[in-house]
């Protein structure tokens, strides 16, 4: 059966309507409002005033740098952890593989509760502080490193790692389980050690999926709001928190500033998707050559 283009469009319509009316128009409105258009009944003297104002503020650059640093660190560590854990699960004997189900736990935990768990574990009066006191590593609350409310957002990174490593494990393990075991057997017969097998066979096999997972996590983290909001670190604060403040706490006429920050996030996300698609294209060509 060959469907005409119109018929295909008709079938896709139930999806295209919410996609355009809510998603695309939402992004469009954010861009417009960042330039002072469609901001209720407010009018502004020029289009780029919000951007000009933001770009002249020190806190904006600090927030942006912190956001990028936190997103980069937590996605990178999650991806590395994901590779390691999937590799170890993959090497487990069949009878022990069921333990892999443990990695699913953080997936069911909502983001806000993961933030709460980090508070329980890492605050100066929390579990790890007590544990290090018990082990004799620290002798008081104050000698335990300040992880909550740190300027580098270490609490946010830790929460991100706990929540995102399982996602990396699921994606990477799926690809790993499709790896042809004969490759490993051949390498073993030719005298390769397990380290050599990992570096020469397994890692190259995982490059594309790892890149995809990293970019998905990174983009998600740039705009992640719930974890930083629970952890409540204030200064300089993640960009998403600043956006939330401008959106809800400040006057309605300040809306363009919130939207301008959203557009900055949008530009970074698009830029990374573009970079990534170039990267993947490169990998594909190399694969084809082999």
């Amino acid at each position, binding site marked *: 059966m060959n469907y005409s283009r119109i018929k295909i469009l008709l079938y896709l319509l139930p999806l295209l309507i919410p996609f355009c009316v809510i*998603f695309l128009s939402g992004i469009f409105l954010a861009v417009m409002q960042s330039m002072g258009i469609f901001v209720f009944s407010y009018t502004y003297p020029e289009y780029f005033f919000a951007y000009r104002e933001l770009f002249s503020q020190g806190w904006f650059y600090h927030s942006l740098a912190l956001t990028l640093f936190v997103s980069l660190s937590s996605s990178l560590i999650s991806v590395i952890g994901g590779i390691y854990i999937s590799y170890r699960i993959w090497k487990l004997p069949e009878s022990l593989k069921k333990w892999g189900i443990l990695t699913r736990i953080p997936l069911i935990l909502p983001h806000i509760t993961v933030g709460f768990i980090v508070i329980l574990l890492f605050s100066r009066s929390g579990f790890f502080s007590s544990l290090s*006191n018990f082990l004799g590593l620290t002798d008081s609350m104050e000698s335990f490193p300040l992880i909550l409310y740190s300027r580098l957002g270490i609490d946010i990174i830790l929460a991100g790692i706990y929540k995102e490593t399982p996602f990396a494990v699921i994606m990477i393990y799926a690809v790993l389980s499709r790896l042809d075991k004969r490759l490993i057997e051949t390498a073993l017969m030719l005298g390769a050690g397990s380290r050599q097998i990992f570096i020469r066979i397994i890692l190259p096999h995982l490059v594309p999926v790892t890149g995809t997972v990293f970019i998905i996590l990174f983009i998600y983290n740039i705009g992640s*709001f719930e974890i930083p909001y629970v952890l409540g670190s204030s200064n300089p604060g993640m960009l998403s928190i600043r956006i939330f403040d401008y959106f809800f706490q400040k006057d309605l006429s300040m809306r363009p500033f919130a939207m301008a920050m959203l557009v900055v996030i949008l530009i970074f996300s698009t830029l990374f998707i573009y970079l990534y698609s170039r990267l993947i294209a490169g990998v594909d060509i190399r694969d084809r050559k082999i």
Partner: protein
Amino acid sequence: MKHKIFITFMIFFFLLPPALLSIYTFSQNWPYPQLLPTSLSLHSFNYIISQKYEILASLFSSFLYSISSVILTLAITLLPARIFAWRKFRGRIILESLLITPALLPAMLFAMGAHYTFLKAGITDSFAGVVLILTTVSYPYMLRALTAGFIACGEDSAVCSRNLGAGPLRTFISVELPVIFPSIAAGGSIVFLVSFSEYFLVFLIGGGIVPSYSGYLFPFLNSSEHSISSLLTLIFLVIPMILFFSIDILLRLYYSRRYMV
């Protein structure tokens, strides 16, 4: 031995948080250098029993908008998923990856703009608005699951059924649905989980008017009432698990009745 160390590490890393929550639930007093609470109590349970109506109302509301999102995502992705799985047309891959983007980009990016649209349409602070925004972020998961399901089941049996004179509805109900039901369950579970655990979007569009369990829980997380927040968090963990287990059991019952007897 190496495997045992790894499994111990996994237990520590993944199971420590829920274990800690369980201990906190029963703790009354847990001063700093102690590795375990110094005194236990059922204080958190008493509190929750005393607040049961409010908690149940918020749970019910969360459950209702999450289930509604599941049904709505299923309704809007069913036909497109069949097209993406069975038809080849120009621009299919680009269109498919474009339609996935609402789940990839941070929800904030479009939700704040969409808030304006919803405001103009008069559906902010309403149940319908919450369901619509949750559907928009979560339909890609359903689309992916259904497309994979339709690819796996193939078009042949549907064509066969049509040739034998069954109408499109009859074909869908008796031929396609039984085969793609596991995909619906898989996609639906993710959509439910995303909607149920969402805090920001429900707050943004629901405006605090639409009750939600995440909204009920949030103020506790920042408070010093660790035992109550821990118990409330465990409830958050248990409800999706109960749901997934019952879906699993239902699926098994359904298939054993249908094909094994």
